[in-house]
């Protein structure tokens, strides 16, 4: 709202040297102010939402993270206690480790599948839209409770995976209730949703001009050489984009682990995800100060991961637009 009162500073120095026409300057100033007011009207819902639903709560949770607020009763300032407590909390460390393993195993696998399938489909396969749709469907369904329930059964003791293994003569276990394999089933679930990065890769591949390949093959470059010298470098911005997006998504994933583990990260906290622990502390144990502190650490983790990625991108992402 303060934005409207700021006078359009650029108007004066531009108008003065041309012709000392105060009437014209006043008119354009008035026009600008009217446009700013119109913009304010169009942006009003967003501004209210930003303040009440996003920015306000963001600051409030920062404040709460230094208190021991529990919804009922008063809150007391506890300084950095919530933050130092985290690193002595074995369940927090476990949740952070689980999430890190999940993110750093499933995202590279998911993107590899996405890239491989995109490359195969981009070679002029007939029926591309049909294949694209089939591979994309799991991305839409993957975050639902229904699929998580299905997963629990597919990887259960008498589920689909063990049927298949039995067919091959291998004795399987109950994958979801074994602490060594439960996290793996969630990783498989995330890899299963490789369709959406694949669609982005396909769009990126289509941007590469065919003339580059013609020129390369005239110069005698083979298919493999073409892939490493043309396709891959020109695709690095898209790989980078997908990587950032999927890392951020994976760090926040909640529903699947919550449903597959029955809501408590079982067996033996092996599927306790970061976000699940935040939820459990905040809304089951009502330790809202502690939950807020953990949420802020999550923001810092995601922000620094993204920042590191951007810094590293200088060394491997190739932008063709220079």
């Amino acid at each position, binding site marked *: 709202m303060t934005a409207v009162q700021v006078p359009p500073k650029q108007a004066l120095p531009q108008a003065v040297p041309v012709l000392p026409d105060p009437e014209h300057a006043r008119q354009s100033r008035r026009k600008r102010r009217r446009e700013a007011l119109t913009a304010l009207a169009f942006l009003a819902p967003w501004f209210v939402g930003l303040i009440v639903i996003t920015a306000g709560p963001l600051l409030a949770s920062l404040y709460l993270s230094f208190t021991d607020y529990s919804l009922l009763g008063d809150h007391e300032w506890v300084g950095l206690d919530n933050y130092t407590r985290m690193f002595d909390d074995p369940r927090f460390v476990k949740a952070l480790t689980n999430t890190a393993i999940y993110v750093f195993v499933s995202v590279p696998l998911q993107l590899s599948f996405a890239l491989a399938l995109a490359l195969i489909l981009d070679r002029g396969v007939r029926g591309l839209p049909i294949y694209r749709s089939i591979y994309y469907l799991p991305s839409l369904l993957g975050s639902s409770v229904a699929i998580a329930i299905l997963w629990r*059964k597919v990887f259960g003791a008498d589920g689909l995976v063990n049927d298949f293994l039995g067919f091959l003569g291998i004795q399987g276990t109950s994958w979801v209730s074994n602490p060594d394999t439960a996290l793996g089933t969630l990783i498989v679930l995330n890899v299963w949703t490789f369709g959406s990065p694949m669609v982005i890769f396909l769009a990126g591949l289509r941007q590469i001009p065919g003339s580059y390949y013609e020129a390369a093959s005239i110069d005698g470059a083979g298919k493999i050489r073409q892939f490493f010298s043309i396709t891959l470098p020109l695709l690095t911005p898209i790989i980078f984009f997908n990587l950032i997006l999927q890392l951020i998504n994976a760090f926040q994933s909640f529903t699947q682990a919550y449903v597959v583990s029955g809501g408590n990260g079982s067996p033996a906290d092996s599927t306790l995800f970061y976000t699940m622990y935040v939820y459990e502390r905040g809304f089951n144990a009502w330790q809202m100060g502690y*939950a807020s502190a953990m949420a802020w650490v999550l923001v810092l983790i995601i922000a620094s991961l993204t920042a590191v990625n951007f810094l590293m991108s200088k060394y491997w992402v190739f932008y063709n637009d220079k």
Partner: protein
Amino acid sequence: MTNKTRTKPDSGKRSGSGTHAAPMNDTLLARALTAVRGKKILTHIGLILFGLAMLYPLLWMISSALKPEELIFREQGLIPTSITFENFGAGWNALRHPFGHYFMNSAIITAGAVVGNLLACSLAAYAFARLEFPLKRFWFAVMLGSIMLPLHVVIVPQYILFSELGWINTFYPLIVPKFLATDAFFIFLMVQFIRTLPRDLDEAALIDGAGHWRIFSRIIIPLSMPALATTAIFTFIWTWNDFLSQLIFLTNPDVHTVPVALRTFLDSSGESSWGPMFAISVLSLGPIFGFFLAGQRYLVRGIATTGLK
């Protein structure tokens, strides 16, 4: 389109190398063509098998939902030897309310979210794409930054706010924020789209004395239908699938939505009634599948331009 031009140099090279021996060339070409065709068929077989493997769990769920309870884990094939709809009836009435009640709750929330996002996000997008105002770049950066903010970092204060307002166990916490354009991703999507529309029409309308509201409602909105469709479809799917915020804001079973009710179902019946649970799960995925079939074009374009999930 590029694919055609990309295969050209290869075939050109092949025929070019054998121009001096015409009969040889023919058989070589024919052999090369069959080799290419064989390779293509192999690719298709591979792609189809892989697609089947991907969809197999879904097909298994549908087939299990149609099997009598005792056959689900006994019979391994996809095609049921006997079909029954018992599971659907049993699942429908498994909880305190029939599942129709939860479907209705989900539908109300989803419809509210779609309308809210379409309205609020398109208004904000028009301002960012077409109007000049002070600190525009700063506000645009704030909007982009808010996209990346994890829900967890704001949900505790939001819960406190909504419980002060008496909104816990109502649909307001799930609908009202959408009317305040908090799903900034869709503002970004529409800004990107509106920027591609030619300004000639707006300028002509301005000269004719139309205000910005008229330009927005009569020119920009009708031209932005693809972006609006993408927004509507993604909002629908995300809201329908959403679990965390519904779990937090809706604790009373009367206002439970389909995902929350399914979770309760899983908790209450444990490992016993998989048939009915699969049946309801299949039904719960139905609307998403329908929107997927109807709006594929917009979905693919939406992901390709903005990287939505």
